[in-house]
């Protein structure tokens, strides 16, 4: 495994990801963990594993991204998630388009040129209602496992409208809907719709140029994908590892040495 030429680490709000790439920029090794409160110790451990499991050398080029990027002191450079996501997704699909990344703590829409450059971006990091946290919160409130959330929502025959735009107030709205006997699946579907509508507004504000790509942990949710297609009228394509796009991009930036 000593063919690893560069490493990228993405320290998000929910998960920490590390990716190793070979000389062609292909992802050849990766790890994904829940993020821990002692981030620096976690980063240290991830590097130790990169050395032990993937044979990464001490002086391997390394770039860090994500909210915790400044804590990865081993990294030669810190680069924002915007640039890294664009780089990662461009490497995978080889063209431009619009990337939507829905993470645990923020969401972003990035328009990418045919040559892989960021043309425009917008971020939602002020309000949890457009992020994975919105679904996480409601999933726990409704006692539905996170991984089944999308399927449950899609199984609904009808859809309830959730009007609260705030995660916390949406929760109390959900409680009162349950009290009114509204089926769980219909509420779930409504919650997904509410999230996707917010995301769609973001996509529109950067100008949707197809293909529409989706990354981040929430990309694993089938209902979000489908509804995003319904709302935008564009087919949504997914990378092989939606959660690793940022870390992969960071590794590519590291390899390019800029």
């Amino acid at each position, binding site marked *: 495994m000593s063919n690893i030429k560069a490493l990228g680490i993405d320290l998000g709000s929910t998960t920490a990801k590390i990716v190793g790439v070979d000389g062609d920029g292909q992802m050849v090794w990766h790890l994904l963990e829940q993020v821990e409160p002692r981030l620096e110790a976690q980063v240290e451990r991830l590097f130790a594993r990169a050395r032990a499991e993937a044979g990464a050398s001490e002086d391997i080029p390394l770039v860090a991204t994500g*909210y915790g990027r400044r804590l990865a002191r081993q990294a030669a450079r810190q*680069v*924002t*998630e*915007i*640039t890294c996501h664009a780089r990662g997704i461009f490497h995978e699909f080889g063209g431009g388009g619009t990337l939507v990344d829905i993470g645990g703590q923020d969401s972003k829409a990035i328009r990418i040129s045919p040559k892989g*450059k*960021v*043309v*425009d*971006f*917008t*971020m939602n*990091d*002020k309000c949890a209602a457009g992020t994975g946290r919105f679904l996480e919160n409601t999933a726990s409130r409704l006692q539905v496992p996170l991984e089944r959330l999308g399927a449950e929502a899609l199984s609904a025959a009808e859809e309830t409208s959730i009007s609260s735009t705030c995660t916390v107030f949406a929760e109390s709205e959900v409680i009162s809907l349950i009290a009114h006997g509204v089926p769980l699946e219909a509420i779930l579907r409504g919650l997904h719709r509410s999230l996707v509508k917010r995301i769609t507004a973001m996509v529109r*504000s950067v*100008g949707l140029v197809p293909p529409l790509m989706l990354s981040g942990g929430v990309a694993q949710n089938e209902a979000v994908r489908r509804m995003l297609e319904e709302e935008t009228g564009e087919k949504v394509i997914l990378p092989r590892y939606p959660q690793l796009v940022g870390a992969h991009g960071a590794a590519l930036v590291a390899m390019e040495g800029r």
Partner: protein
Amino acid sequence: MSLWNELRYYGGTALGLSALRVARWQAESRGRSAVRQRESVLAPPLFISPRTKELIGRHYLKSRYVKPGQKVVWATSGAPIEFLKALDYYVLYPENHGAVCGTMRRAEELCSQAENAGYSRDLCSYARTDIGSVLSGQTPVGHLARPDLLLACTNICQTVLFWYRVLAQHFGVPLVLIDTPFIYTEVSPHDIAFVKRQIEEAIPVAEKVAGRTMEARRLEEVALLSREASQLWAEIIARGRHRPAPLSVFDQFIQMAPVVEMRGEAFTVDFYAAMLKEVELRIARGIGVVRNERKRLLWDNLPIWYRLRYLAEHLGLHGISIVASTYTNAWGELAERIDSRDPIEGMAQTYIYPILNRGAGDKLATMKRMVADFHLDGAILHSDRSCKPYSIGQMDQRERLMRECGIPALLLEADHNDPRAYTEEQVANRLDAFIEMMGV
């Protein structure tokens, strides 16, 4: 009592003015030996800066010791104050005072005072700072003289109408309102006549409060001084076209204080004449405000008063200089409309025309012109939670700047005075992503 007042005034001002002058000399002698610090990405402050500080200090010193018999007016930043100056009013500007509180990091606590009294947090943070200061009596400038008259002009927003009504009720003094019809596309003669008549009607009210009659010649003098200061300010701003830019909008945000709150004064004209010379000198010597200027940007909307230095340095580190802004331009672009031969007509023509009283398309046109004139590589549009009239339309303006000028543009969410509506981590993240996007 009157003797005591006189003693207090002359003693206080003499001492205060001397102290300010000494502070200026000290700062100037330090400034002369100042060279760009090796680690600093920004040029040393302008030599004129100690003088600015002295002017602002003097302005508020006079507020502490108002001349016996002199009347005090509180006015909005875009109000036609020339007729009040001609009547020897001492003019205070709650918005400027708010900005001072903002830069001195005192606004948050004053806003809280207003909120505790029941004012909504959605209200403009200048209004909350001012109302909080009035209610609590707290201010970092020592003391604000009580107004005898209030003048609100709706050419900047409608909030001032309600804000000044609060002040009128609190102080129990007359409020003069100048209502300026909004200019969607073109201004009609009727609109001008409407504003002019209101100014004409305001003069007798101000005369009655002041207990004196306005002299036409004095008004002409004041108008001429206003015009000259604004012209010089416009000239200074235009020097930003130079590469590297001799001064940034962060400098302008501070240096604009006199043209806003001391227009109509001879010393203000002298001040800007001296500043223009210094800026010319910087150009002649090739001094740029940012080391290795690589990108030049536009700033739209009010400053983020409590983070000026941070933003200047954060951008400066990447060789980015913000060289033009719609905000500082607002006090220069109307200079030619001020007419000293027919001051009242001139005031009507001028004060109906600020950027905030014109349609969003007009602001876009101004920005596009700036992008071309100043050779700009991008734009930052501060979406100011407090200033709705300035922020409305920015989504479209951003999109059109990108499409029609081919430059990247960033919408930055913050608030001009309330740090609780500003998150540094997220602002930094957006700025960094924007900087990377520009390929710096």
